[in-house]
């Protein structure tokens, strides 16, 4: 589905990613690593928000290089950005409907889609008339995920979905992802390795712009390096 090959990328003259290759099929993949490792850069490059220096990015055999962000969205890649991801001045319902409004293949079935999303996040149905900006951090994150789902994506990318949330909400978010991975491919960047392991099939560890480790979720759980550096055991 998504195929990133030998990607080199950075900002200005500072190189961040060094020959990163990553392939995602019909599965859920976690991307781990400390702050500054290049996780968000990798996502920005995939979404066309920054220009890769070298390498290729393909989605279902189609090159994404030179495409604009809104085109990625229309191809079926939905991003839940790291923060400030909502339209605070719109109601929850409008936020969700906007997620489908500009995606041709999703717009026709937005009514069914919103019902699906409401079953996944019942709280959003209750609050659908409320301004999104007035909700709690956890609820806002749910609106952001729900809005991404409204576009009926083939690949859902989440950039640190647990950032700034209380533990019980974090657990809830990953429970939802565990449910979602049955129907959509997922790429999730995280620092909270422990929680995210339950929602992924496979994980990569990115450090200083290079992928240093790649293994199944079970393999990561027992990997001594992961245990020591990321799970603190």
């Amino acid at each position: 589905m998504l195929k990133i090959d030998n990607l080199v990328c950075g900002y200005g003259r500072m190189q961040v990613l060094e020959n990163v290759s990553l392939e995602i099929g019909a599965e859920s993949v976690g991307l781990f690593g400390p702050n500054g490792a290049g996780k968000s850069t990798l996502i920005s490059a995939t979404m066309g928000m920054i220009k890769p220096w070298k390498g290729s990015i393909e989605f279902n055999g189609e090159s994404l290089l030179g495409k604009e962000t809104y085109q990625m969205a229309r191809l079926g890649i939905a991003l839940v950005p790291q923060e400030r991801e909502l339209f605070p001045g719109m109601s929850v319902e409008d936020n969700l409907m906007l997620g489908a409004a500009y995606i041709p293949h999703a717009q026709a079935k937005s009514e069914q889609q919103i019902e699906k999303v409401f079953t996944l996040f019942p709280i959003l149905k209750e609050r659908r008339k409320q301004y999104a900006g007035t909700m709690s951090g956890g609820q806002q994150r749910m609106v952001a995920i729900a809005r991404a789902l409204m576009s009926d994506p083939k690949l859902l990318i989440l950039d640190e979905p647990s950032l700034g949330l209380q533990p019980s909400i974090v657990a809830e978010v990953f429970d939802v992802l565990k449910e979602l991975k049955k129907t959509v491919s997922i790429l999730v960047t995280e620092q909270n390795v422990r929680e995210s392991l339950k929602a992924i099939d496979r994980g990569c560890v990115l450090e200083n712009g290079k992928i240093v480790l790649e293994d199944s979720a079970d393999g990561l759980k027992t990997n001594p390096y992961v245990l020591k550096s990321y799970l603190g055991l």
Partner: protein
Amino acid sequence: MKRATSYILPVALVALGVLFPLFFGPYPQTVARTIFKYMALALTWDMLFRSGQVSFGIAGFFGLGTYAAALLALKAGFSYPLAILAGALISGIFAYILGFLVLRLRGTYFSITTLALAEIFRVILRNWTSFSGGPEGIVLPQIIFNGDSRCLYWIGLAVLLVVVVVSQYFEKSKLHFSLISIRDNEVSAQTSGVNIFRTLLVVFTVTSFLQGLIGAVDVVSVGYAMPDSAFDSNYTLLPLAMALLGGQHSTWGPIIGSVLLGVASEYLKLKIPYGHLLVYGVIIILVILFMPEGLIGLFRKKKGAKRG
């Protein structure tokens, strides 16, 4: 039921607007025409502002429509209706080209570019005497409808209604979503599939077309155009003040703001000539300090509080 009642007020206002000249003489009609002109300009400014982009180019596009229509009527022998349409189109096309060049830069860069527009046009038209008549401007052989004040009033009202309808379309259609999304969060707008550049280009072109239309109708209604009056900075500042006073991001806000400021300025012009500008300045400062969302914002707050 709620739907039906929500139509009563607009329909009543339009009826009142249309019938107004049957009961009032030329002077009130002229005052109303001026208010309509500014109201229409305030609305066009707000329509683009709903996307978060601040344009200072109102006077530029208004004046461009004015001069294009006047010159085409005078030199190319266009009939007035054709000249009006051409004036509006030229403004729109110019905005499209300019937008294509600068709308990739948004926010301040865009604002500054539009700020320079009116001044550039004004300097060119002042100095290109053989083409534009220089500082004295151009005088048209006759005023449209032979200067019949009622007809002039109605054509001004017609232009305003066109602008109101487009503004309502912006507010009720899908475009509303993309405009707010661009204003709120560009990254999320893009990742939701909104083509920001194209959306802004369309809105900038449409609103500039309308500003050109207002200018073109204005020039055939007064019969002359001068660089200093066509590109008067008041055409940028007053609509902005009216939209801010009434309440931004809506159709009603600029309408209410322009009626209040329009009537007030007419009264103040009689009492203290040129002092009305002072009052405008004070109003803008007070509005920004105490009700940043304008009168409509106060109303919304009250309504929200009642609902609990």
